């Protein structure tokens, strides 16, 4: 499934090198989006292949969320083309995207605060049993599944009946991630999933991304953390003011170059200094060779 081990001889901005046999699941061709007179996104090309993690990076307000909202069906693009399985589409609701196996963790998480955790987990895709007039929720099964999925993420809740609004920000984020991972059949989109998470849960999320990729899913991973991106990414797209500034696969760009692109050249010096500090704290999480091949190496902190 390793897809980008080819020869990195192309220019800095180029199309993906996909596994030749499979085309992209999702593709944007010079797509754009305007909110009234605000042009949030313009001329963006993006391809999501199965078994690949595409990282989207960029400043605040660069248009990352806008980009994935087009793919997840929350907004429609106003220019360019959006293709799923090589057929042009225009989702009018997120339901249509979900039906195509595209699941999303939104930046604002998309949970209903007053509803219990397990109802939030299955909202919109409820499990049911029984014939039609008496078709009802399979509550037992849903609670059991939700509990299992959350435990797999290292989140243990005393009571799945508690309103999700009573959970901590990070716990809520974990529920949203576990839900998307559970329902994402072909494409998994994560909009800053590690923003509110602790070290342990961030590690779990990265493992999830890797595991989803290994299952053959295409993953779109939005983050502000180049380390996180570089640990799991196969392809990197950097947005700046609504346009694509960098579109490169892993072997064409180093962590430093990536950070450089995200920060903008002039800010590099200051950032390098910061980076050194970050490294000092987070050495474990940097992608050393052993970490990349030995799955248990990083899960040391995983058991509490």
């Amino acid at each position, binding site marked *: *499934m*390793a897809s980008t*081990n080819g020869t*990195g001889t192309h220019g800095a901005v180029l199309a993906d090198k996909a596994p030749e046999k499979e085309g992209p699941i999702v593709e944007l061709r010079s797509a754009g989006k305007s909110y009234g007179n605000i042009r949030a996104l313009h001329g963006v090309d993006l391809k999501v292949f199965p078994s690949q993690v595409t990282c989207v990076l960029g400043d605040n307000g660069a248009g990352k969320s806008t980009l994935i909202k087009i793919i997840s069906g*929350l907004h429609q693009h106003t220019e360019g083309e959006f293709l799923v399985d090589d057929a042009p589409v225009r989702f009018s*609701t*997120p*339901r249509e995207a*979900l039906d195509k196996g595209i699941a*999303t963790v*939104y930046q*604002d998480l*998309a*949970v*209903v*605060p*007053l*509803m219990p955790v397990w*109802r939030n987990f*299955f*909202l*919109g*895709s*409820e499990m*049911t049993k029984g014939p039609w007039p008496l*078709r*009802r*929720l399979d509550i037992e099964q849903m609670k059991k599944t939700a509990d299992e999925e959350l*435990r*797999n993420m*290292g989140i*243990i*809740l*005393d*009571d799945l009946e508690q*309103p999700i*609004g*009573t959970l901590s920000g990070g716990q809520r984020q974990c529920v949203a991630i576990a839900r998307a991972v559970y329902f994402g059949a072909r494409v998994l989109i994560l909009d800053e999933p590690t923003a509110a998470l602790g070290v342990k849960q961030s590690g*779990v999320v*990265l*493992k999830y991304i*890797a*595991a989803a990729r*290994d*299952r053959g899913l295409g993953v779109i991973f939005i983050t502000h953390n180049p380390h996180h991106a570089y640990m*799991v990414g196969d392809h990197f797209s950097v947005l700046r003011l609504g346009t694509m500034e960098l579109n490169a696969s*892993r*072997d064409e760009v*180093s*962590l430093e170059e990536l950070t450089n692109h995200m920060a903008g050249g002039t800010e590099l010096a200051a950032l390098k200094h910061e980076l050194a500090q970050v490294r000092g704290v987070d050495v474990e999480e940097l*992608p*050393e*060779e052993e*970490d*990349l091949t030995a*799955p248990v190496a*990083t*899960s040391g902190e*995983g058991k*509490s």
Partner: protein
Amino acid sequence: MSMTQQAEPAVTTPPAPGPGKAKDGRTTERPLALRLLARPEVGVFLGAVAVLVFFLITAPPVRDGSSMANILYQSSTIGIMALPVALLMIGGEFDLSAGVAVITSALTASMISYQLTMNVWVGVIVALIVSLAVGLFNGWMLVKTGLPSFLVTLGTFLILQGVNLAVTKLITGNVATDDISDMDGFDQAKALFASTFEVGGVNVKITVVWWLVFAAIATWVLLRTKYGNWIFAVGGNQQSARAVGVPVTFTKISLFMLVGFGAWFVGMHQLFSFNTVQSGEGVGQELIYIAAAVIGGCLLTGGAGSAIGPVFGAFMFGMVQQGIVYAGWNPDWFKAFLGVMLLGAVLINLYVQRTATRR
């Protein structure tokens, strides 16, 4: 670091499952009584019991079985409408046209049957279609324009109020419709919508039965079906609900149509109990329905509530309305009672919501 092999997955196995059946352990179980009291429908149940006991003591005639049947009947005419209004409120919307829509439905059935001298069932079916269409219009306007339901249904309320009066005068030359009690099918329809049966020497109206049946169905739908889940979701956070694939448009429109169905049912009850319909009635009733739902623990802003709460809410209304009469007091006090109950219920609601979302 090496650049060539890094597309290899960081992890080749899915994350290991967490520890077994361990609990977080920081949550202590609150006493059952406390947990129950925190539920709004339990609060309103206790309120209803308190009101009942109060009138049992102060108004001796209430202790009579037939008075109780009368109180239940009064409650049921409010309660049948309070149910769909409550579901709509949980779904995050109001319907100010619910009161006059009842009369619109009754007028439609009455005039269609009488003017065309047809079987009353024709009128009943046409009235059902009209009522559902009014709900459809409300819901569709709301979804398409994104205006608050307060505005949309205020418009419908005014339109229906005017149409009720004008069309009735135009067709019958009177403010009320003609008596339809001698028309074909009247007895059948009356048996369904407005009959009376005897239980242990007490005459009970059939609407009491319908009320409780509808409440049971609504409770089941709300707590045990997908649709119920969607109602809570669109009321609690519409954007989130849409983002995870809940059919928000369908849910909202169907809720308005459900209110239309309720208006039709109550309208038919009024028509077949009184044989004629006064075209100017119904104004103000919509607030009574909304108040019964709020007293019943439905969150005015949507996202929380029950179907059983509004049953007790409606019972409190019926109890107070009749109890004042049985106690021999001035009925003018009714509205004052209502206001006090409403404010009390809202304060309890507020408290519950604060505790549910405390940080």
